């Protein structure tokens, strides 16, 4: 950190990030089974946002506005939220392999969402995201209790996460098999692997506020997260209210994960891999690491969604398949590099 880093440079970086994000959203809206030129995308936006009145094919305009754009925005939010959750969990638990998927938080959120959707828990009072949030918290509670009993070590946390995700995935399968009809079961299994096909504008109304709120809370705690570098006792001696920071950040991470899971299913490896990529690019300071992870996560997820739509012509792959195809090898790489840390 240097004091004389010009404000201009920071503003420039923020602007460049915004441009990158908008460009990625544009490409996300343009690429698909029928490619639509970027200028049509721009004109559609102008029509919708400022009533510019360009003459466009209603079909193109409809595809871009009603399907692809909302989808790309939710993908971006989802990527950011998962990447931020990954940074939080990795820093607080001081564990290079932590992320909401591996720690079973996503699995818990799935179980929560499925319980609401199929079993009708809460009799319509609880919405899917709230069910997912409750499920995520229960899963995190279960996994942390297990990790504490197993000795709190790096390996203990991961093994507890494995146990947690297995348990909650099994619960989800049990509920789906027992209570859902064939049609529901098919739809839910597809959703569980991560799927943005059902995303529409109302989802944007949840995804954007959650991702922005998460980013702001994380940035507010950037220095506190830095202070955890040498562990919780060291953080406490640097004046960090350790317990409060834990509670707030774990809750934010659960809110972000649960909201995204309730919309697009549980998507693995983004929360694990993106923070490591960001660390390689901008270093370990959270003031930079958090926004960089959010941006890279957003762009990666838009790209993964585009790939999932075009890789097999005429068919949409679950996005979780794409992220796992990239994520699993990256996971292996981190594992082999961090051998000494385990």
């Amino acid at each position, binding site marked *: *950190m*240097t*004091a*004389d880093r010009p404000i201009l440079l920071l503003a420039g970086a923020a602007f460049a990030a915004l441009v990158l994000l908008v460009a990625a959203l544009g490409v996300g809206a343009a690429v698909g089974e029928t490619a639509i030129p970027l200028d049509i995308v721009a004109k559609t936006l102008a029509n919708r946002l400022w009533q510019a009145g360009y003459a466009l094919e209603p079909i193109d305009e409809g595809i871009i506005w009603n399907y692809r754009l909302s989808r790309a925005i939710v993908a971006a939010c989802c990527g950011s939220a998962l990447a931020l959750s990954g940074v939080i969990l990795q820093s607080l638990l*001081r564990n*290079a392999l932590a992320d909401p998927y591996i720690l079973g938080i996503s699995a818990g959120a799935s179980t929560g969402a499925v319980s609401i959707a199929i079993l009708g828990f809460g009799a319509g009072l609880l919405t899917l995201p709230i069910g997912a949030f409750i499920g995520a918290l229960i899963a995190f509670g279960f996994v942390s209790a297990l990790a504490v009993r197993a000795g709190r070590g790096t390996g203990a946390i991961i093994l507890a996460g494995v146990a947690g995700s297995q348990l909650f995935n099994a619960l989800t399968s049990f509920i789906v098999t027992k209570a859902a009809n064939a049609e529901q079961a098919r739809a839910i299994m597809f959703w569980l692997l991560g799927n943005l096909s059902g995303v529409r504008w109302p989802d944007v109304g949840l995804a954007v506020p959650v991702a922005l709120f998460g980013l702001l809370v994380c*940035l*507010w*705690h*950037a*220095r*506190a997260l*830095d*202070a955890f*570098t*040498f*562990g919780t*006792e*060291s953080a*406490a*001696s*640097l*004046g*960090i*209210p*350790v317990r409060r920071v834990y509670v707030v950040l774990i809750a934010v991470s659960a809110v972000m994960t649960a909201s995204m899971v309730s919309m697009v299913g549980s998507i693995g490896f983004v929360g694990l891999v993106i923070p490591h990529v960001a*660390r390689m690019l901008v*270093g*370990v*300071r959270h003031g930079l690491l958090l926004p960089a992870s959010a941006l890279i996560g957003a762009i990666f997820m838009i790209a993964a969604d585009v790939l999932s739509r075009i890789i097999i012509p005429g068919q949409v792959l679950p996005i979780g398949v794409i992220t796992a195809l990239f994520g699993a090898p990256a996971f292996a790489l981190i594992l082999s590099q*961090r051998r000494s*840390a385990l």
Partner: protein
Amino acid sequence: MTLSAKGLCWSVGGTTILSDVSLDVHPGEFLGIIGPNGSGKTSLMALMAGIRRPQAGAVTLDGKPLSAHGRQAIARRIAFVEQQAETTERITARQAVELGRTPHLGALTPWSRADDAIVDRALEEVDMAHFSRRLWHTLSGGERQRLHIARALAQQAPILLLDEPTNHLDIGHQISLLQLVREQDLTVVAALHDLNHAAMFCDRIAVMQGGRIVALGTPAKVLEPQRLADVFGVTVDVERDSAGGCFIRYRRPEPRPAKLKLVAEA
């Protein structure tokens, strides 16, 4: 700015670590805490730093219990260097020292030139300025320890608590580090292993044994051959010089009883 402990008790899993420990730290003094392994030095340091809360008794800062001060307010007054704090993050030496500024910076306070200057000075004090860009995991144990001290100095707290600060250091750096700490205008409480260092640098020494303070006073008063034999189980000669300093010379233990030797040979 006075730090004092009154009637501290601390136990872990049914084992009593500290029982009824009281200690007043005088402003500006260098107070050494000595005692054998497991005598409770580290626990006492953690309680005095406010990292842990005593099960009975209280640590007070300016007459108010630590628990009544905010975490950040404590960190601005008490800097604490634990034993062996490690990280796997790829941070540089300088970044590790920069963490010391944390209690002075709010979430939105920008990093300033003054912060940079404080970090520079702390790095120079511990003779690590030339390593400031090195990554943590490439540094030796002694270099890491000096950076922890620099982080505590960058914290600019008037009270400095050090838990065995000279572990891992070679003799040259051990002495220069204690000298450096001594020269600061700080109140220092340090758990020390080396009795001669304690004699050389401390204004007062507290001797711990079995979770209690069994002696407290100036080095010349506390470092008695009989007491050291009782507490550490060693035989020593204590030499005193005209300036009131004292030096400890360890005697080689008596050969082991013949019975044990026979067992070993059989």
